[in-house]
């Protein structure tokens, strides 16, 4: 698709993010987040300040933004941005003047394409995106300096010989250079129309690269013309973002000395231009340590990227008057009982009252008020929770499998309500189907005319508004015009979200079974969407690489999380609703702060697109599953990878922690559900050094952690859910082929 799209995604992202950031700085937060905007504005401006001491690349970016703003006649914003970024007028002028015709032309083109859309967007976002995505043409032109194409092979093999001859401890670290250098050198050759040399170069050295870059190499090998480079997203990513390497100081010195001795300017230039070498003091890392962290499209995360403080603790549960009617009934039976029970309840309450030191402030993100029905539901869930089974390695959960039969139209997504009463499926034929899995049938609310006839004072008015004639086991929701890739119930079970290939997210009412809102903003397929655990907010992410945060009553996004270098394949809310995790085809997981839109964590280590995410119930950890069949565990607080679960043989499409977090269940395309001992997996010793450097040595103990493997009958597992009593529900469509 990129071929014709011609970098439009890229430009869209910029258009939308940049002016918004500046708008916010101006305090011009129209629409969007009423409640949040003051905070957001201040933080965004903070971010802009942080970005102020810019390198040349970033300065160029800012200039591009200024240019754009000028053309859009947003003069006020221009002034503010200039002031914030500390750019002088002259610099701007000079840049504009000598800014090559090509650059401004391309800018002009992009503006004319999507100017209308950009003005619509009044949401806030981070200026982070800007940092990562400098102008396309500028980056392309960076390839114009070049040496003798015939010598590229000599340069590369010279470096290769050098790295192979150094001490073992340095070799592993310096070997990281191979892949980014290889790609950049190849691209330079292609860019400068040395097609034959490029081919030879590729053939000679592509075999040396790590196997987990195979997919990227395949894309690369198809690319032999300069014209092709413009439209290719993968390559744009590679050039627009600096590939990040972590190398110990010793190894780096070694490399530097070698390159200086040899006068190997070509390679030195590439390293300077396109690589970001994150130097650390201390022991060089081992090969396995490096391998576990690498694999992402743009190398490892910079260490600073994971330094921000994350409030991963849980929010205090709202206090609910627990002495219920039912309890009172029980109390009547026996007098001794209520006394026993009450202190217990108090205990529960006090536990909640104690503020988790890692928890965000209660009102950091404004959350919707609890309605009476929500409180009732909370009480129900607490009651259920008292009956839940304590799982552990010795007491594994029972598994119920929900098989979608006759799903010829192709089941693409499944969700189950928290109380496990409803199950919904999104299908490739654009339909969403909802089933009731309890004997209680699904009923619609009566039509408006009929509702008028109802006695509104009656006690059972809620019952009376339902139309008994419409009762059925399942309902079909029509509205999308493409496969429904993501689906999510609201916590109160009144709404259902679905995201589709048609670029919209739709909100459905489960009272009337009609579509309430179509959220348009992603102009490309939306791969996933999820409601916040407290309702009201939801997040969506798709092919346009930007995750958006929405509120159900706003038709425009409140936040846009830009930074991923490839499609966002899955989105997930943190249990405290203050953070959002996104998994991407760039093989990283990012954690975003809902408050200010900042990216607070980047987790690299997967070797394939990430298709499933799950937060542990205590909010401390996140698990991610990818197409490589591996599940990785991350400590959010420290920003570290703390575990690797190997066992699945195909894409992991579903992950879920048990209600108490003892067991992690993973479901995969290979038709198995696997249970892992999560407590043991998280019991990794992290000393200060590993925490500081992030160089953890992972024990290879997947087999010990694997508690069980459960087969299905040729049914890929695409959703997992633990009921409130810790019964594991799995779902998938039976595949007869």
């Amino acid at each position, binding site marked *: *698709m*990129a*071929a*014709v*799209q011609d970098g439009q995604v890229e430009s869209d992202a910029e258009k939308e993010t940049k002016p918004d950031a500046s708008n916010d700085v101006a305090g011009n937060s129209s629409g969007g987040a009423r409640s949040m905007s003051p905070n957001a504005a201040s933080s965004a401006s903070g971010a802009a300040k942080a970005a102020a001491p810019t390198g040349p690349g970033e300065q160029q970016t800012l200039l591009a933004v200024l240019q754009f703003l000028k053309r859009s006649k947003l003069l006020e914003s221009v002034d503010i941005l200039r002031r914030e970024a500390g750019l002088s007028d002259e610099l701007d002028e000079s840049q504009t003047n000598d800014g090559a015709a090509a650059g401004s032309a391309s800018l002009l083109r992009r503006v004319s394409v999507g100017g209308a859309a950009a003005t619509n967007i009044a949401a806030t976002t981070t200026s982070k995106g800007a940092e990562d995505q400098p102008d396309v043409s500028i980056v392309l032109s960076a390839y114009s300096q070049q040496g003798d194409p015939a010598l590229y092979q000599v340069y590369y093999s010279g470096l290769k010989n050098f790295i192979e001859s150094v001490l073992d401890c340095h070799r592993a670290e310096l070997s990281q250079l191979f892949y980014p250098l290889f790609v950049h050198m190849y691209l330079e050759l292609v860019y400068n129309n040395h097609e034959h040399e490029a*081919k030879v170069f590729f*053939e000679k050295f*592509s*075999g040396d690269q790590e196997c987990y870059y195979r997919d990227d190499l*395949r*894309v690369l*090998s*198809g*690319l*032999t*013309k300069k014209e*092709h480079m413009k439209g*290719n997203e993968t390559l744009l990513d590679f050039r627009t973002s600096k590939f990040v390497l972590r190398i110990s100081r010793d190894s780096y010195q070694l490399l530097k000395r070698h390159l200086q001795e040899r006068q190997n300017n070509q390679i030195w230039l590439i390293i300077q231009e396109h690589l970001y070498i994150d130097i650390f003091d201390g022991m060089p890392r081992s090969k396995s340590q490096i391998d576990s962290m690498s694999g992402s499209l743009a190398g490892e995360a910079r260490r600073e990227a994971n330094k921000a403080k994350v409030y991963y603790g849980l929010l205090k549960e709202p206090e609910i008057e627990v002495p219920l009617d039912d309890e009172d009934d029980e109390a009547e039976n026996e007098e001794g009982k209520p006394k026993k029970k009450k202190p217990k309840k108090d205990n529960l309450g006090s536990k909640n009252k104690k503020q988790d030191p890692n928890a965000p402030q209660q009102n950091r993100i404004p959350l919707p008020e609890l309605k009476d029905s929500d409180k009732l539901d909370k009480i129900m869930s607490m009651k259920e929770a008292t009956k839940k089974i304590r799982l552990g390695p010795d*007491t*594994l*959960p*029972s598994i*119920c*499998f*929900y*098989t*979608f*039969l*006759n*799903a*010829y*139209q*192709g089941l*693409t997504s499944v969700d189950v309500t928290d109380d496990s009463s409803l199950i919904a*499926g999104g*299908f*490739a034929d654009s339909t969403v*189907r909802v*089933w009731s*899995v309890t004997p209680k049938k699904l009923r619609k609310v009566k039509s408006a005319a009929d509702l008028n006839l109802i006695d509104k004072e009656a006690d059972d008015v809620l019952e009376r508004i339902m139309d008994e004639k419409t009762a059925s086991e*399942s309902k079909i929701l029509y509205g999308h015009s*493409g*496969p429904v*890739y993501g689906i999510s119930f609201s916590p109160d079970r009144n709404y259902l979200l679905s995201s589709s*290939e048609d670029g919209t997210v739709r909100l459905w009412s489960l009272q009337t079974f009609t579509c309430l809102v179509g959220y348009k903003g992603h102009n490309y*397929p939306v791969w996933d969407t999820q409601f916040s655990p407290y309702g009201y907010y939801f997040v969506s992410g798709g*092919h346009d690489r930007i995750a958006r945060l929405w509120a159900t009553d706003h038709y425009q996004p409140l936040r846009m999380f830009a930074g991923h270098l490839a*499609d966002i394949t899955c989105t997930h809310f943190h249990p405290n609703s203050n953070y959002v995790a996104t998994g991407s*085809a760039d093989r990283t997981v990012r954690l975003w702060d809902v408050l200010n839109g900042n990216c607070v964590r980047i987790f690299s280590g997967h070797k394939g*697109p990430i298709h499933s995410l799950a937060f542990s119930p205590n909010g401390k950890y996140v698990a991610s599953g990818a*197409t490589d069949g591996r599940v990785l565990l991350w400590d959010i607080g420290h920003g570290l990878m703390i575990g690797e679960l190997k066992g699945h043989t*195909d*894409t992991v*499409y579903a992950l879920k922690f048990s209600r108490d977090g003892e067991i992690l269940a993973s479901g995969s*395309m290979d038709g198995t559900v696997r249970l892992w001992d999560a407590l043991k997996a998280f019991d990794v010793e992290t000393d200060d050094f590993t925490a500081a450097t992030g160089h953890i040595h992972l024990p290879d103990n997947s087999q010990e952690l694997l*508690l069980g493997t*459960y087969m299905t*009958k040729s049914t890929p597992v695409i959703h997992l859910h633990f009921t409130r009593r810790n019964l594991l529900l*799995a*779902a998938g469509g039976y595949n007869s082929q």
Partner: protein
Amino acid sequence: MAEREERRFAEVSRDSVKLMAESAGVEVGDEVAALLAEDVCYRLREAAQNSSQFMRHAKRRKLTVEDFNRALRWSNVEAVCGYGAQDALPFRPAKEGELFFVEDRDVNLVNLALATNIPNGCAETMVRVHVSYLDGKGNLEPQGTVPSAVQSLSEDLLKYYQQITRAILGEDPHLMKVALLDLQTNSKIAALLPYFVYVISGVKSVSHDLEQLNRLLHMVKSLVQNPYLYLGSYVRSLVSSVMYCILEPLAASINPLNDHWTLRDYAALLLSHIFWTHGDLVSGLYHQILLSLQKVLSDPVRPLCSHYGAVVGLHALGWKAVERVLYPHLPAYWANLQAVLDDYSVSNAQVKADGHKVYGAILVAVERLLKMKALSLSKPAEGGDWTPVPLPAMYCELYSFFGDSLAVRFSTGPELEGCLPALPCQPADARKETVANAAAGLDNSRKMPQLTANLNISPRPDGTHGFPFIFRPFARSSSSSSSVQRRSSSSRPGQRSAGPSRDVFPKARFPPPQAGPPSFSFLIGGRQMGRRCQGRRFQTSFGPQPPLASLPPRAYAHKLPVIGRVSKPVRRWTCSHYSLHLPL
């Protein structure tokens, strides 16, 4: 590596481009064609790469035309229409020259539109739930699902399945035999196993048709005997079908002319066969079977034919099962049965006849229990490992229920009984114990048939010759024999005190031929009294008999107004059943 990578991609050659341009009426130069070809290749690859993400998000492994079209559409390229079918299109070579093409037949839309055989819409999408793993262990139920839901069979297998089921359930007995034989020997039918199991589970729907039930049971037998099949958890399903035939009050049994007894006997035999050969596949199977048999037996509401089934089932599972389930339950059950048998009203005639069946079955089971028990007494080298109920006591109790009809079953009974207490004197009998031991050692596995032969056909005049193995242990170790003696003697006083005088029961009619009435017979009488059992009326009806020794026991048995023997000649396997031929 690069070369290999390169070859993996589809290439559109320069000539193809030229050809296509020509067909569109455009003349293209070589250079342009080359450039175009290269670009087309690149765009194709790109589209293929993009389409793969649609496949991944649809959670499929197979890339469809639709995925590719979506990728094209998002690249603002016209989608390729007409290739939405699920089946792969055949790619064929033309006869002359190296020309390959996708076969794309014309579809006559008129015919299609006017077609009368409008296909049914596909089945409704639905969600079905089942508990797959309980507590993270094992499957709760066998996964033999309904065939209609699964159609992954190859054509040949499907045909085979249809032919076989048709032959087995059809009219032609010869065909059935062939089919069963094939089912028993075919090594390639593993994939069909669930379907056959499903067919067999159809016993529940044909309970009115004995013939069909019989055929299905034969099918079970064939499957069980097929050495190439691994039954796995399907054993459970098979067992439940067989149990159905054994225990359920089949619709066919309403008509007294239907010989459902034979079916039950056969099913019981089959059950034991499955159990002995495949019991290890399912843990706890034995206990489950026992439990369900016991449940039926202890349920007075169940018809007598179900009880009969339970008894023959237990009998088939071996004497230990009889001892564990039937024997302790007998006192309670006896009262019910007695009531049935004592009712002489005409309306009760049918039920009573059934009652006699049950009686007979119990008798046979008990008889074997005693014999096997006696045998087992002789087996352990040391006297330590005794079964909970000592044999003599058991015999006493059983005798109290069955009276002489039990004794008669042991045509050599007096000898057997006699010899037990008489054992202590055997060591004195200077028989060549070494020879006996050797014989026993050799014949260990064939003991039982020997016994049956003796019992049923030609009782030896002298037990000492007939049962060398019984004597063996006693002859060998004096300690064990003395313990037997002790036991019998210790129980004696108690029994005697319980009922010393009323020796009503005609044990006297079987005067032990050997000299010295064994203490055993005395015990029986006493026990009888203590239980205040009136004995069985029909037993009293037979007249004085000629001395036992002079009659072959078989003949004698026939003179009984017997209970428990089918009047019409039984089939061979039934015979074997009653003659206690058991798989050991």
